[in-house]
């Protein structure tokens, strides 16, 4: 059965799950009509609350998201989950193993879970994750969880995307000092110490609390520390309470928060459009490979080359 990508957008608005899934695939594969479809859905977005879940591998992010999803389902909320895992830089393939921790949710029509591979994108998310969030938002999800790759120290994409960021740590992963050094603690709105039944859990809680106190910048929101045992759902209800508190806090901060997000979306869309247009053009330029050669052999400086190229493009527009 054939369908157009624009029809898929309509399907999403009509709450058809298959349309959501297919539209996501079209976006991810760069279908030329998918831009227009996402654009059409834009005015239907803005209702979902987006929670980024980040933290080192093995900290229990997926299991925790599964528990949070259950909590929100009990409230009758519609839940979306996007779980991102890394692509192999050599084979290009990926093992997307987050869903396995949430598989019982597949029996619940009120939850939509989609796995994504980074496909070379750095920063913790895939290139199209933001668009996937928009699709789930337009589809009617009340809350959308986005699980990052979880390398732990370079998860900056999620900052631009999520309303609230939950940083999940677990005792004994050796990440506490690393995290402080890397500054990742700055991005967490809520800190979770998962596997809180482990021996050194309290030490981890202490280290995080102390690290938070070291943050000298005066913030209006003090990140709370929540203990959880994701495998038994312990602490999940407390975590939901903290999420709702942060959500209220954001509401009070009002348009500021939405404006920051709006500006981010504009700049990202602009960068993507520019890159797409310019780079496509550039690659078909006969001088392109020669330029690369010169840069590799240090006869040409990439920064100067870029400035020159931009000058040419802008110059074309202005003459």
């Amino acid at each position: 059965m054939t369908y157009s990508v624009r029809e898929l957008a309509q399907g999403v608005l009509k709450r058809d799950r298959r349309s959501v899934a297919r539209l996501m695939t079209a976006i991810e594969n760069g279908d030329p009509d998918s831009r227009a479809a996402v654009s059409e859905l834009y005015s239907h977005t803005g209702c979902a609350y987006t929670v980024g879940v980040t933290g080192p591998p093995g900290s229990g992010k997926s299991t925790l998201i599964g528990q949070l999803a259950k909590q929100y389902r009990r409230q009758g909320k519609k839940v979306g989950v996007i779980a991102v895992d890394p692509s192999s830089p050599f084979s290009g393939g990926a093992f997307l193993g987050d869903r396995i921790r949430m598989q019982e949710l597949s029996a619940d029509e009120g939850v939509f879970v989609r796995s994504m591979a980074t496909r070379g994108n750095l920063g913790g998310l895939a290139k199209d994750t933001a668009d996937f969030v928009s699709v789930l938002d337009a589809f009617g999800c009340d809350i959308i969880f986005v699980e990052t790759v979880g390398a732990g120290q370079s998860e900056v994409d999620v900052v631009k995307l999520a309303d609230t960021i939950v940083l999940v740590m677990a005792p004994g992963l050796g990440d506490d000092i690393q995290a402080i050094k890397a500054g990742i603690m700055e991005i967490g709105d809520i800190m979770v110490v998962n596997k809180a039944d482990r021996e050194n859990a309290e030490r981890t809680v202490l280290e995080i609390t102390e690290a938070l106190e070291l943050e000298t910048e005066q913030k209006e929101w003090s990140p709370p520390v929540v203990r959880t045992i994701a495998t038994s759902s312990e602490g999940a209800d407390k975590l939901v309470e903290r999420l709702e508190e942060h959500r209220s806090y954001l509401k009070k901060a009002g348009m500021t928060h939405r404006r920051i997000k709006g500006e981010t979306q504009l700049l990202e869309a602009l960068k993507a459009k520019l890159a797409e247009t310019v780079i496509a053009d550039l690659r078909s330029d006969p001088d392109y490979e020669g330029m690369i050669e010169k840069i590799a052999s240090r006869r040409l400086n990439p920064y100067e080359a870029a400035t020159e190229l931009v000058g040419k493009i802008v110059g074309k527009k202005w003459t």
Partner: protein
Amino acid sequence: MSETTLKVRSAGAERRIRALVAKPGLNSHDRGAKVIARALRDAGMEVIYTGLRQTPERIVEAAMQEDVDVLCLSILSGAHMTLLPKIVNLMKRKDLDDILVIAGGIIPEEDVSKLKEMGIAEVFGPGTPTPVTVNYIRNNLKRKL
């Protein structure tokens, strides 16, 4: 430009085959499923692995949400003649029959033709070299890449 550079550069750009590897039923170990999952990943596919003891309904729902190109069912328990047709019928009912469905595991020769009639495209017995399965998938996808 070195071959590795070319590979790395194009790793992000190509259209990837997405596969779901599932184990319906009451099987207790999943070594075979994990072997095939790894092989598909090494062949450049994006593999969603749903783990042990999955009901047909959950497997089909996952295949739909993940919009996979191929569904690989691994089954050891002997319940293949009930579980596999159930899955294929669910897929048809949900308008998912553009997804290639293959099966592997302990499935007796005499049941293979019946399964094929019901909609399982191919059955791969234990010990099938993984490149055989990978190539079959590549050459028999129902959806255009």
